[in-house]
């Protein structure tokens, strides 16, 4: 049987019932869902490698400037980092709850959990902005703009290196949080329109995966920058 014959019969085998989200190059909705998910996981794997390269660089520079890195890390506020960890963990929980609500046909609760996720991400960004402002006031800038005075090893490049990595990694992570906020808001609006159900919740599931990865990266950023002595 040729492909055209299959298409001319019943392409989806549902006896005429056709999900509007079902794209014709997929045999079933399940295949479509699985394909999307594999694509998302591939993207997440590349994200792991992106941040992995930065973690490797951080590790090497910490090896080179151990004293400077310990001194520099004490300028970061441990309570701010810890609060942000809690906020992100809670937002991961609300994201996974949003997926659960989407696939059990509870559109209003799904939208509510998505907005809660956006709210948590907003709190995270506010705390981050407070931290950055405080750092800038003390002259804790990256690379050649570093202008903090009173370091124990004057003239060492270790301090500026630490803050270069700090702003690069938390900045890239913060960019992910901002993108996540945008995507979650878009999902929340779609969810409150009743666009997701147990038949189709792929976007909620995939963006929740992205959000968990953002959380996962912070789980490593937090101890490496704020806790290690």
């Amino acid at each position, binding site marked *: 049987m040729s492909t055209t014959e299959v298409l001319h019969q019943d392409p989806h085998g549902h006896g005429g019932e056709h999900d509007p989200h079902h794209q014709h190059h997929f045999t079933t909705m399940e295949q479509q869902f699985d394909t999307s998910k594999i694509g998302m996981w591939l993207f997440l794997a590349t994200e792991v490698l992106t941040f992995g390269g930065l973690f490797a660089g951080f590790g090497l520079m910490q090896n080179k400037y151990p004293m400077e890195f310990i001194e520099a890390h004490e300028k970061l506020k441990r309570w701010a980092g810890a609060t942000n960890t809690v906020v992100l963990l809670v937002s991961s929980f609300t994201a996974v709850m949003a997926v*659960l609500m989407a696939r059990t046909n509870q559109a209003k609760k799904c939208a509510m959990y998505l907005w809660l996720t956006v709210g948590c991400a907003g709190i995270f960004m506010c705390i981050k902005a407070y931290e950055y402002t405080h750092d800038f006031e003390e002259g804790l800038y990256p690379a050649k703009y570093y202008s903090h005075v009173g370091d124990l090893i004057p003239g060492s490049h270790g301090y500026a290196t630490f803050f270069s990595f700090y702003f690069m990694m938390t900045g890239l992570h913060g960019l992910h949080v901002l993108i996540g906020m945008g995507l979650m808001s878009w999902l929340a609006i779609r969810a409150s329109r009743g666009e997701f159900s147990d038949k189709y919740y792929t976007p909620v599931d995939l963006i929740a995966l992205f959000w968990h990865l953002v959380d996962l990266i912070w*789980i490593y950023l937090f101890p490496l920058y704020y806790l290690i002595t």
Partner: protein
Amino acid sequence: MSTHTEHADNPKAEAVKYTITLVVLLILTAITVGASYINFGSGNVVIALFIATVKGIIVALIFMHLLHDKPVNAVIAVAGFILLGIFLLFDFLDVDSRTNPQPINLHPLPAAAAPATAGAPAAAAPAEKKE
């Protein structure tokens, strides 16, 4: 999509599972912050990264559904970390085998090898080497 709804048959049980997961993650966060105030020497790094890894695995298995999902997704996730491991392994092997890991152009050129052009780089190099 029967395979994806099989564990959503009981949404309440799912919600309870996620709540317990969140509580465990928060407790681990409290432990890792608490441990950072105690001096274990070089053990602090090991403890912090061990707890972070445990948290990461919990997030991946429960929140990211890898535990109940199709294995291919877990294969991709693990492959990503294996590739990262290979990268880190050779990265650190390389650095460990060098006494002075500097970019090659920071070293003075051997004067005998390029007598005509050695003047400028050799003069610039000592100043940069102080870094």
